[in-house]
């Protein structure tokens, strides 16, 4: 029985680290503002969102046909297509491909799917060395910590933290925290891996059914280096990444980086279709709970996600708690609506780590109704008896109170009457979460209802108290 992730507990540690909190919040808010400026410059942005949402909905509603079309096209290109029902099967398939060819080193670009499948430890336990080449992912790999944000994996770290990690693992100067020199150190130490790796791996931002192409968007060019040097290329692709035709890629490419970082396109937008002569290309199509989510009428829209991270950047809760506090590969608003489908009990607190403010929904390029889905997940969690805190019984009691005017009034008047006479320590102690960092509102002399009865009831004649 999995232990529920305690987001609130994790967040309090994050908030206590003042410099880290201040940078994290400011940096991601800045990305949100860049996104605003980039989208304001495109008059057709709102109609693009509508189109992108409709294209994804269409694709998901015909997903089986598109998967088959993609497989045919990829095979015609000379790629080998594999299917994995879950994380374990994905890892086994990848391992078999590598082991059968005696591959011992693998360079890879960023792939949330491979993190989701926990592929790295699986391969490393079997003697395969895996090198993350995205700078943020590499920092996290060397620090033995998961990525905290799907686009900027080490955004929760300050330069001093990176300097410490590199000093410990790459032998750099612990006192030199200049980001340029740190990045240069990663470039210098990763390059030999690119040159000698037996295999390269990418994820997929999009997979095109019409042509069998894998589209990978990076700023560093590390996906291209991972594919163009080794003789074996493996692409891990979630089945929801399908797009029907090449022309659709254009729309999504125009939206992805503007939503994520506020730049019109990523520096390297790469399309891998046919393996180089004498090399192999393998594509692993992965389900791992996606088909199950597809069948959920309330929650399938979460599969439209293009992994831009705009929802994380805008979320005031995410910015102040950090991705690691969600305890999952997918954090922030999108994580909140995806993770409970994987493990309802473990992630039962996540839908409550939200104020339902709706900013995420407003920035989502594919118009996922994220905050509505968060509300829906709360109902599911309560129905399935896995409410993380408020007992169902207490809610039943509250419900009865609200349905009875007499009981309700008695409770309100009793609470008010008592509070003002309580010593401060009774109101403000560790059991009263409200009072930890806030003053409790003072109880007034009269409730509104009492005031009305005293001052207005006679004139209006509303009935007996």
């Amino acid at each position: 029985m999995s232990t529920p992730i305690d987001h609130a507990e994790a967040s309090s540690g994050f908030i206590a680290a003042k410099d880290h909190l201040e940078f994290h919040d400011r940096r991601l808010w800045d990305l949100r503002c860049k996104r605003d400026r980039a989208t304001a410059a495109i008059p057709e942005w709102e109609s693009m969102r509508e189109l992108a949402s409709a294209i994804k909905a269409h694709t998901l509603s015909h997903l089986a046909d598109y998967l088959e079309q993609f497989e045919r096209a990829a095979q015609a290109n000379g790629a080998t297509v594999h299917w994995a029902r879950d994380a374990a099967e994905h890892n086994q398939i990848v391992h078999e491909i590598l082991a059968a060819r005696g591959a011992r080193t693998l360079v890879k670009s960023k792939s949330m799917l491979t993190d989701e499948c926990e592929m790295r430890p699986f391969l490393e336990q079997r003697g395969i060395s895996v090198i993350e080449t995205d700078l943020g992912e590499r920092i996290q790999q060397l620090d033995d910590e998961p990525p905290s944000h799907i686009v900027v994996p080490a955004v929760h770290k300050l330069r001093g933290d990176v300097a410490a990690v590199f000093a410990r693992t790459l032998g750099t100067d612990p006192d030199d925290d200049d980001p340029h020199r740190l990045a240069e150190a990663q470039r210098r130490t990763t390059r030999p891996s690119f040159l000698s790796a037996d295999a390269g791996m990418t994820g997929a931002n999009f997979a095109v059914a019409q042509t069998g192409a894998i589209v990978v968007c990076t700023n560093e060019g590390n996906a291209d280096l991972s594919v163009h040097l080794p003789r074996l290329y493996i692409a891990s692709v979630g089945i929801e990444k399908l797009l029907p035709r090449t022309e659709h890629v254009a729309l999504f490419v125009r939206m992805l980086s503007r939503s994520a970082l506020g730049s019109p396109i990523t520096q390297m937008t790469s399309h891998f279709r046919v393996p180089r002569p004498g090399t192999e290309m393998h594509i692993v199509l992965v389900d791992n709970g996606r088909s199950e989510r597809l069948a959920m009428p309330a929650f399938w829209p979460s599969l439209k996600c293009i992994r831009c991270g705009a929802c994380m950047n805008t979320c005031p809760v995410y910015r102040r708690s950090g991705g690691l506090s969600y305890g999952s590969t997918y954090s922030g608003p999108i994580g909140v609506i995806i993770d409970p489908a994987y493990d309802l009990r473990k992630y039962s607190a996540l839908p409550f780590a939200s104020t339902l403010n709706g900013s995420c929904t407003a920035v989502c390029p594919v118009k996922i109704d994220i905050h509505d889905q968060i509300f829906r997940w709360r109902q599911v969690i309560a129905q399935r008896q896995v409410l993380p805190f408020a007992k169902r019984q207490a809610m039943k009691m509250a419900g009865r109170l609200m349905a009875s005017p007499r009981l309700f009034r008695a409770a309100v008047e009793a609470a008010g009457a008592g509070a003002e006479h309580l010593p401060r320590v009774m109101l403000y102690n560790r059991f009263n979460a409200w009072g930890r960092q806030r003053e409790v509102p003072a109880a007034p002399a009269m409730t509104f209802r009492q005031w009305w009865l005293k001052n207005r009831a006679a004139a209006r004649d509303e009935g007996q108290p």
Partner: protein
Amino acid sequence: MSTRDEILARVRRGQPAAVACPPLPGFAQGDRRQRAGFAAFAEALQRMGGRVAAPPADGSLASAIATLYPQARVVCSATAEVAGNRPLSAIRRPADLDDVDLGIVRAAFGVAETGSLLLTEDHLGVEALGFLAQHLLVLLDPAQVVPDVHDAYRDAAFEHARYVILMTGPSATADIEGVLIHGAQGVRSLTVLPWPQPGP
């Protein structure tokens, strides 16, 4: 039942009700088309950290390169217009390009909206050249600039080439405290030199 059949069956069963695919509009934005062209492309590329070199006054490509890259020792060109000192024909494995200081390629076209360059394996000669070289010089016919990304994706390369890249400036990252760095893993600099395509 194979995993493939199992997944397809589950997907088919669970798919939401069919939604038609909306047609993509032309996105013909009058003012954007007016702003298209090499000048708009250059502005967009520079915003992404790329550089644009002025065509050499004396019309000599070789002297332009020598002026732009005085430090380059190993030069590898995939273009017909200029030769480097490391012929691509000598490359047996892509990793042999490791010591290349300057790669020279010609792009199929530029994209004004983003400052992107379209390159395929034909333009790169060896794909890894565009990423292992420390610096990349890209020849671009200034008449070959399309207005936007939708135009770019109409190119036949996406159906016929092995590999297509829309390259927009040098390799970059801002993963450490949001500080922008050029030359993360791939090329440290990308410079476009307007140079008309030689006639047939």
